[in-house]
């Protein structure tokens, strides 16, 4: 029975909500909103569970002096300071902690919370650089295409990018030409011819690529974002939606039970 009751509830709720999508008449039309409201109410109460887990987990670390227990002490202290400071505004100053005149807003939110959040988000700038440096290698055709598209969009979306991009791509073509000529000099026969032709082609493309990027980089970046990028994204979305429907049907029909005990 421990499993059967939740499965039954899942089945009934799932079927009702699917039907409600197609029937606007009462009571079906209101079902989605009603269930959302219930989820919010239940979610509010489960926060108590979460707080219990958080505080106990960190208190345990402090008690046993595990590695990093000082961070846990800071966490518990910050938790109670925030809680009492916020409540204090309401009890002693009779105003919301987010009132423009509240000390909580002025000191804690503006000078602690906002900078901390902004700092965490700003880590992305550094991590994107290191991830791109490590991952964007022209190992094969696909990765070269990815790398080129990323470079075009990155430079096409910033001011003055149009002036810098031609020089970078021209330099890349020169390097490519050097590479092809070097490889050609080490080989012979048809392979040598191919390398030489590729080298000459690289040199020949310098001026056209330079001109096109100088005048049309913005349009190229927009085209990449609006057409191939969007097409790929839509394809992934269709796959995710179909997978989501199949997964939902498995859950509603009780085929998928891994989330239950």
């Amino acid at each position: 029975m421990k499993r059967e009751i939740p499965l039954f509830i899942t089945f009934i709720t799932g079927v009702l909500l699917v039907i409600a999508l197609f029937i606007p008449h009462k009571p079906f039309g209101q079902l989605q909103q009603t269930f959302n409201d219930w989820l919010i109410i239940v979610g509010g109460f489960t926060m108590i569970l979460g707080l219990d887990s958080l505080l106990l987990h960190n208190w345990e670390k402090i008690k046993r002096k595990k590695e990093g227990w000082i961070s846990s002490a800071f966490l518990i202290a910050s938790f109670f300071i925030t809680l009492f400071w916020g409540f204090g505004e309401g009890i002693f100053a009779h105003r919301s902690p987010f009132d423009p005149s509240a000390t909580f807003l002025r000191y804690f939110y503006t000078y602690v919370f906002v900078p901390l959040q902004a700092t965490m988000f700003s880590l992305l700038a550094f991590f994107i650089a290191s991830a791109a440096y490590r991952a964007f290698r022209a190992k094969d055709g696909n990765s070269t295409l990815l790398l080129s598209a990323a470079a075009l969009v990155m430079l096409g979306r910033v001011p003055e990018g149009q002036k810098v991009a031609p020089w970078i791509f021209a330099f890349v073509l020169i390097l490519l030409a050097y590479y092809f000529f070097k490889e050609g000099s080490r080989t012979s026969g048809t392979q040598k011819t191919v390398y030489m032709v590729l080298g000459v082609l690289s040199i020949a493309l310098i001026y056209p690529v330079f001109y096109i990027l100088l005048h049309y980089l913005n349009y190229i970046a927009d085209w990449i974002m609006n057409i191939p990028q969007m097409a790929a994204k839509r394809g992934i979305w269709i796959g995710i939606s179909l997978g989501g429907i199949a997964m939902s049907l498995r859950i509603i029909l009780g085929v998928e039970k891994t989330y239950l005990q």
Partner: protein
Amino acid sequence: MGFLLPILLFLYSPPENVKAFDTPDDGGGSITVTWTLPQEDSEAIRYDIYRYTSATDSGILAGSVLRGINTFQDIGVKDGVEYRYKVAVVYPDTVLFSAFSSVAVAKAQWFNKKTKAALFILLFYGIVLFWFTEEAKKGRRTYIRKIAGLEAVEEAVGRSTELGKPILFVPGIGLISDITTIAALSILKRVAKKAAEYESRVIVPNFDPIVMVAAQETVKEGYTEAGRPDLYNEKDIFFLTSDQFGYAAGVDGMMMREKPGAIFLQGTFYAEALILAETGHSVGAIQISGTTSVTQLPFFIAATDYTLIGEEMYAASAYLSKDPLMLGTIKGEDLMKLIFIVTIIAGVILETFGIHLISNWFSIF
């Protein structure tokens, strides 16, 4: 100004052809009013829509819209009551009323005709899935291609055990109502079962308390199925915080301190995805990620060793359990995708020649 009134009336005109009708495909309590815009619309300030019941002569202002708009939905009406409307155009110096509209009565509809395409697709998809699961029950073998990320689960858990380090499973910042979180929990169960077999520890920091409770039950079940319920430690599955970057900071701290051998980043992620993935890479862990957040997939692909892209996450449960019924639904999904591809290609060809058959039929909402 009074002497100007006849001149203004001559220059300006009221709205015409005012029509009122029950708003179609809704749950009742709504009437839609439309009218033809006067020629002087560009000089109008707004349109006021007045509602009249047949029992009274005085009108109630139902609402207003800005110039250029010739439709209004009145959502303050009762079902079964007759209403009539007048539309007044407000010009800088005068207000002109239209004639009465026809009588309209609001009522609820039992079927939203705009969703007929969605209903057809859902029923068709349901039949396809049902057919494939029936075939699976009859014992028909189902081929699923190898998914590198899922094949690597055993390798990741084994590596962690060899190094004597714990496994970190990050279920993302989705709620339990997200299908992606449920898919992540089904992967968690397999990981927990494998970890129990290798006598490894699984740490699961959670963003949501309900997900935490579900994760605790899932890991317990995994350890029990492997025959090692004694190794289960409830304290390793805990709530961290419901703040996005607070969660990222907490998990990062855990990665730096615990130095896990394997990190699973499975679930819904937003901007914190790369922060987690890069920190995981810096501690030298093998990382298997999976998400349906399309904007974060490029970061995971760049920064982690294996990535489950979108629906591969949903297929994980079926793939890892090898359950015939679940594998049958994956086949059904693939057939639907093929049908979509053919429909899109056919639609593109027809649209190129100006035939809007398919696009008209699929205008849903």
